[in-house]
Structures are given as C-alpha cells and as structure tokens.
C-alpha cells in the first residue's frame, strides 16, 4: 500500500501524518505541492495544519496548488481515494471536491481538545466500522464550523456521505457536544472517493497520547473501497 502525503507551504501536520501511517505499515510517498501529479500511489492524504498560514480563508490558497489539479483529475478519472484532515478538509471544500464550507468557529477562537466522534452510517469507505461506533479524537482549528446548503446536506444524507458527527459520550449529537457550531454536528463527510473531517486521527495513535482510536480510523480507511 502506497499513500501520498501532500505538503503545502505552511503544512504542519504532515510529519505527524507520515508517522501515523508508517506506524501502520504503510509506505508513505511525500509529495510537495508543486508536483503536477501524486504519481503511482493507492491513496492520498491531505494533512492538517495551516497551509499558507490559513491566510485569506483556510485552505483557499492551497486549493489552487498545481498538485490539486492532479488530484482532482485522478479523483475524476480513477476514483482515487483522498482523505483530507482538518486543513486538508478545508482544502477539499475550497477546491470543490467536497460540498459545503468550513466557517470560523462561532466564538472566533481557535479550539483544541478531545471530542467524541460518532460514525453516522456504515460506509464502504470505512469497511467493518458499524454505524454508531464512537471514537475519541482531538480537534484543533479555528475555521471548522461545517456548513452546507440544504440541497447539499440532503444529497450527503442520500448518498451516505454524512459520515461523522460530534456527539456526547452516549452518542447523542447534542448542541453541547458540538464544539464549533457545525451544522447538524457534522465532523466529517464523503463524496465519491473523497473524505474530509476536522478531527485529527493521526493524533490519536496511542493510549499515552490520550486515545488510540485514530488507528481504527486509519486502518479502516486504508482498507476501504476505492470510491
């Protein structure tokens, strides 16, 4: 299994993501944003972390990078599986590879902490993970409040693309369990072969880090169907 991890100027979770994937036995191919294509890999991860300093809008400047043209083509032609984490998610929505947008958190503040994330529906992108599974994953972002038009939300629901929600420890998507004002407590979505989420599975790879649920997440995604 070969996975490309793409770095943009300013990306700062790329090394953590490489470490997490390698700890699962994956061969990682680092890709710099100027590359026209990600090359012969099975999957792509757009890691988190302040590409272009989050200037203008998080993810907006990176969405125009040459490598994103290549990735968009491969998604279109080969249904290449792409996972965007945090800033990677923002890049994917800015690029239009995922619907909706990530707005500034309601209090305007960066927020870092642990959240309970529920798998909303079983999805071939994450085989073997039943609906209702609860994971403990950290978030760290200032622009993570998911929003989509009613039509896009409906389409996500219809296609099973509404993947992850912030919930309380019992799995209820209450307003209190919503750390950032995301519509319907949405933490992550999918469209075709493209997945995006705000929480950071690569930071939850060991009990001593607070949780090892990121391993379950990444293993499932690595074993997931192509598109």
């Amino acid at each position: 299994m070969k996975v490309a991890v793409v770095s943009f100027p300013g990306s700062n979770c790329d090394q953590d993501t490489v470490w997490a994937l390698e700890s699962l036995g994956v061969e990682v191919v680092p890709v710099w944003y100027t590359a026209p294509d990600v090359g012969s890999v099975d999957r792509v991860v757009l890691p988190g972390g302040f590409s272009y300093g989050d200037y203008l809008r998080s993810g907006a400047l990176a969405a125009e990078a040459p490598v994103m043209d290549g990735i968009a083509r491969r998604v279109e032609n080969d249904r290449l599986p792409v996972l965007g984490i945090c800033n990677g998610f923002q890049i994917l929505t800015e690029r239009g590879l995922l619907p909706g947008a990530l707005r500034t958190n309601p209090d305007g503040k960066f927020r870092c902490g642990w959240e309970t994330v529920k798998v909303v529906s079983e999805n071939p992108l994450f085989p073997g993970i039943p609906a209702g599974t609860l994971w403990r994953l950290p978030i760290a972002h200032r622009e993570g409040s998911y929003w989509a038009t009613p039509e896009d939300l409906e389409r996500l629901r219809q296609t099973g693309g509404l993947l992850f929600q912030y919930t309380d420890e019992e799995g209820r998507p209450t307003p209190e369990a919503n750390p950032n004002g995301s519509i319907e407590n949405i933490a992550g979505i999918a469209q075709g072969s493209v997945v995006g989420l705000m929480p950071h599975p690569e930071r939850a790879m060991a009990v001593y880090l607070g949780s090892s649920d990121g391993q379950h997440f990444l293993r499932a995604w690595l074993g997931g169907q192509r598109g």
Partner: protein
Amino acid sequence: MARFRLQVQVMPKPEILDPAGEATLSVLQRLGYPVSGVRIGKHIVVEIEAPDADEARELGQQMARRLLANPVMEHFGIEVDPV
C-alpha cells in the same frame, strides 16, 4: 497597459451566520450605539495591469470567483479605479 486598483468587497451571504458581526453588534449596543445590525466581510485591494477598466473588472471577477471569495458562503462586489 494601464494600472488599476480593484476594491473587492467580500461579504458573507445573508443566510450565513456571521458570529463576528453578531458579537460586534452586541458590544456596540452595550456601549449605547443605536445600531441594529452588523455584518463583517473582507475588503481586498488589488493592484492590477490591464488594457482598460472593463478588462480590469473582468479579471477582478475571475479572481474573486476563483480565489478571493468562496461562492458557497460569500458574495462579492468590485469597484475599479485607475491609479
């Protein structure tokens, strides 16, 4: 070729919540100002070369649609001035 200054105003769409605007509104009201609404967007000033003002505006619209604004949540307006 001439130089133009584009003033691009990028505002959150009306249906999009603007928490910063609302927070500012409540502070202004607490300070006693007779205000009833605040919306906060971006003001982006771009210096550009173009044969004429129409072409400058056209380029401005392309840049705004592509990069400066996010069409999912924002709309924009452009003014063109020669410099």
